[in-house]
């Protein structure tokens, strides 16, 4: 039911003129994709710096919470650009993207990363100031940092794998995958 709704919405997006124009424009599509990938350095790059600081592997000469606070704004700016360009990439190829195994796993990992970030911030608030200048953060924050690195490496890997068509509906994937990605019987192939 949900998959059919997603499919109908994707078909509607696919029929809009802007989606077709973007998909068929070599430069627009590639520039949007390049911006999406290069913004990694701003969003994920700064996030990894914060995680590595918590683990005692980078910027150990700076107080951890101060580093995290100051990098938040540019990092969120990077995530905002990634989100907008990501939506644009989805809009350009909506049907195939909505049925991509890798995109669905990527979205689950993004959700896990978001929950982990919220838990991490709660621990950061509750941890107190005593450890701030220590090389390593308390265990709960280090766990959160490892989780964050794991989730985001997974997000990048899945994002890269979206380009590959191994599990596309047109390839008749195994029934379990087919159900997970929402292949519709008798649908037009994209």
């Amino acid at each position, binding site marked *: 039911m949900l998959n059919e709704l997603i499919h109908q919405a994707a078909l509607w997006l696919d029929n809009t003129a802007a989606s077709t124009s973007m998909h068929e424009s*070599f430069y627009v599509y*590639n520039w949007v*994709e*390049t911006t999406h*990938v*290069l913004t*990694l*350095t*701003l969003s*994920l*790059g*700064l*996030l*990894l*710096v914060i995680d*590595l600081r918590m683990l005692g*592997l*980078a*910027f*150990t*000469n*700076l107080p951890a919470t101060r580093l995290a606070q*100051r*990098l938040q704004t*540019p990092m969120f700016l990077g995530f905002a650009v990634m989100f907008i360009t990501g939506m644009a990439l989805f809009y350009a190829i909506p049907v195939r993207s909505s049925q991509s195994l890798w995109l669905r796993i990527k979205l689950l990992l993004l959700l896990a990363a978001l929950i982990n970030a919220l838990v991490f911030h709660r621990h950061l608030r509750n941890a107190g100031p005593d450890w701030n200048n220590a090389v390593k953060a308390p265990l709960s924050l280090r766990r959160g940092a490892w989780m964050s690195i794991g989730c985001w*490496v997974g997000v*990048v*890997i899945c*994002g*890269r*794998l979206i*380009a*590959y068509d*191994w599990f596309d509906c047109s390839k008749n994937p195994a029934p379990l995958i087919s159900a997970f990605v929402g292949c519709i019987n008798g649908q037009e192939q994209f």
Partner: protein
Amino acid sequence: MSLLTAYTRTLMTVAVIAITTVFALSDLRIASWEALEAVFAWSETTVFGYIGKTWGAAFAIVEALHLVGLAVLGGAVIIGDGRLLGLWFTDYSCAEIQRGAQRGFFWGLMLLLGTGLFMACGVAMKIYYMPVFWYKMLALGTGILFAYCIRKPLLTTQPDQLNAWTLRLTGTASLMIWFTVAAAGRWIGFSG
């Protein structure tokens, strides 16, 4: 003689630029490119080349790790250059920020070079004929030289005595070089 000692890095940089210009404008460039064809053809026959060509999933995962390397290096560069431009951490000296970023920059670069070598072996003959691949290598070489021969020594010796504009120009140049490396790398993917 004292002039040579005081401006060793500047003279070395000028020498590198002069040698590169002569190389680029002479027949030596074409001769070197032709000579490298055998190396590229051989690299496709190595274990990396075999894995890269045979297992698409392995290639894709290494590509993703290449992007993670780019993110680590990019994060280190952005923080360091942001400080040089006076955008943040102005209550810390440039040298302190540089020291903190150094390890991230080094390991990001190592990850980029390692995964990049693997990927290059898998598609060696394809990239050999791509001008954008050579632009990327040129930008990468410039970036590494700039980071280790100009930016790092400049910031670790006496950064507080440097003119603010020297710091800003160094930061701007560094950002532009690494942006070129990343953008050229992305463009390789669109040129196949």
